């Protein structure tokens, strides 16, 4: 949007005034009801599950991370929502409109995984086309394209053909194309993939900015620290089924914390049998490190260490990362190693380290 003096500001200012209040408030940004997708091989007639019975609601203004291992059904879900796949059964609604109607995508911005573009176009031409296809008038599309090209750091080379873009530049252009028409809902498939740390930070900032502007965001990512930072809630999908939906705080803080207790004395204390599954000792150059896997035992372990002459120097709680929890969740569904293997293996690995 141009300033009163006609100069171009640093960043685009979203203008959502044309959207009637009634339609904005009435329905959730995304609603999926028993959404399923099965693929049938035409030769062998073998049926493969892409997604089964997904029921999910995403209220407006929320940022949701959509997590799961490769092949779990994340991209299938996103493609179903954006009309690239046809559901086998069930339905879904974007901002109150059924995904069966192309008009449901009018206020949607979508970034596919590893986006591909017309290499004979330049960045400016592509963004103008993207804006116009999403309903912007020619003048508005040109203005927004110029603004977003600058916003994603490509404004200094508007005439550069896309065939000369690097992977990171294409990813940023894809993000600009998803945002050029000021969508109310963003669906991003691996938006940080292929980006360097600076690019990742920029994308993170963009998502946060959209969140503050009230845009609803659903994105899949394998970069879990970013998910923890950006999301209000996460949904975990495993083997084509929704496994869990919870807030990041519920998942991360709800789990038991690991606590590391550093001691100056290297005297090998004998750990009481009742704690042997939860507490173990690691040798360190200047003393010993006791690792407590159940934070509830801390009130008992600390007095025991003090009374045993271990000379406690520090107590450091380590909260579980989303990654650990996702792996544990996936382990339970035999996506990777079984849950038991992960849990029993972790201390061993730490000891050997």
């Amino acid at each position, binding site marked *: 949007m141009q300033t009163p003096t006609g100069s171009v500001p640093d960043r685009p200012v979203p203008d959502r005034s044309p959207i009637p209040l009634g339609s904005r408030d009435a329905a959730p940004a995304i609603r999926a009801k028993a959404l399923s997708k099965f693929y049938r091989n035409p030769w062998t007639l073998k049926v493969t599950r892409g997604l089964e019975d997904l029921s999910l609601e995403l209220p407006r203004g929320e940022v949701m991370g959509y997590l799961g291992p490769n092949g779990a059904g994340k991209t299938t879900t996103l493609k179903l929502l954006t009309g*690239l796949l046809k559901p086998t059964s069930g339905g879904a609604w974007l901002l109150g409109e059924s995904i069966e109607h192309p008009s449901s995508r009018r206020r949607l911005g979508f970034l596919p995984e590893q986006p591909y573009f017309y290499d*004979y176009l330049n960045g400016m031409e592509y963004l103008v086309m993207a804006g116009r*296809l999403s309903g912007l008038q020619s003048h508005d599309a040109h203005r927004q394209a110029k603004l977003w090209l600058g916003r994603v750091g490509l404004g200094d080379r508007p005439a550069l053909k896309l065939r000369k873009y690097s992977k990171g530049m294409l990813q940023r252009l894809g993000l600009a194309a998803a945002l050029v028409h000021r969508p109310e809902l963003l669906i991003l498939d691996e938006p940080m993939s292929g980006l360097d740390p600076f690019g990742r930070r920029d994308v993170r900032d963009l998502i946060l900015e959209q969140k503050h502007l009230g845009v609803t965001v659903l994105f899949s990512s394998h970069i879990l620290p970013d998910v923890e930072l950006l999301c209000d809630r996460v949904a975990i999908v495993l083997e084509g089924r929704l496994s869990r939906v919870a807030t990041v705080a519920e998942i991360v803080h709800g789990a038991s914390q690991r606590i590391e207790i550093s001691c100056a004395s290297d005297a090998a204390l004998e750990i009481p049998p009742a704690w042997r599954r939860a507490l173990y000792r690691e040798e360190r150059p200047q003393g010993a490190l006791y690792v407590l896997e159940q934070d509830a035992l801390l009130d008992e372990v600390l007095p025991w260490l003090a009374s045993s002459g271990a000379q406690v120097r520090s107590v450091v709680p380590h909260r579980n990362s989303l990654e650990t929890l996702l792996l544990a969740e996936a382990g339970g569904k035999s996506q990777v190693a079984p849950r038991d293997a992960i849990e029993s293996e972790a201390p061993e690995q730490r000891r050997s380290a």
Partner: protein
Amino acid sequence: MSPLLIAQNTYREATRDRVMAGMVTAGIVLLVMTQIASPLALGEGTRLTVDLGLSGISMIGLLAVLLVGTSLVAKELERRTIYNLLSRPISRSAYLVGKWAGLTAALWTVAAALGLALWITLCLRGAGGHVLSIVEATYLAGLELSVITALAVLFSSLSTPVLSALYTLGIFVVGQWSYDLRELAAKFPAPLSAVMRMAADMAPNLPLFNMRSLASGGSPTTGLHLSLATGYALVYIACVLALATAAFESRDFK
């Protein structure tokens, strides 16, 4: 609005493609060759120029359809550029119509450029009075290419570029000889004859778009012929694109 935008982009893609520039160059080279060969035509140099010039428009157009048109949709699927389009508020029918319209516009541009080159050549030969028949013949060639492009879009939305090219070429051949095929069918036993007749009926009636023999004599065609050809082409294209949309509507883009 969206079919127009898709068409605009497809036109831009086709005209920036070197294949199209190569096609126009090849057509002009063909015209130059006819001038070199015309002394051998025993006084029929103008007829030879018109005949080869108009044949060139059809053949070069067909080659462009086979090279560009048959991969029109398949290439978008392969390169996944289609994700960026169909995740926007665009229906699949609008997408296909846009793709067809864009390539058709590019082929009309090629046909017009070659028609103009032919007329200039005729003017240089002192036969500029053929202008009306050249314009009409070029128009009919454009209609023929529009029909073939619709078929290419249909096959491209269902199959690989190579198979699409084979199917399109096959239907072009059947369409060119549809009258002969019907006559030939009468000489075969019933089941085969029925299949041959059905193929001739379903393939486009391409001889309807051919007025080369008239144009080479400098004679224009009738308004009725032009109207019939236009109406037939529009109906045939609409049917083919409707079929393509029906097939494309349920397609998944994995």
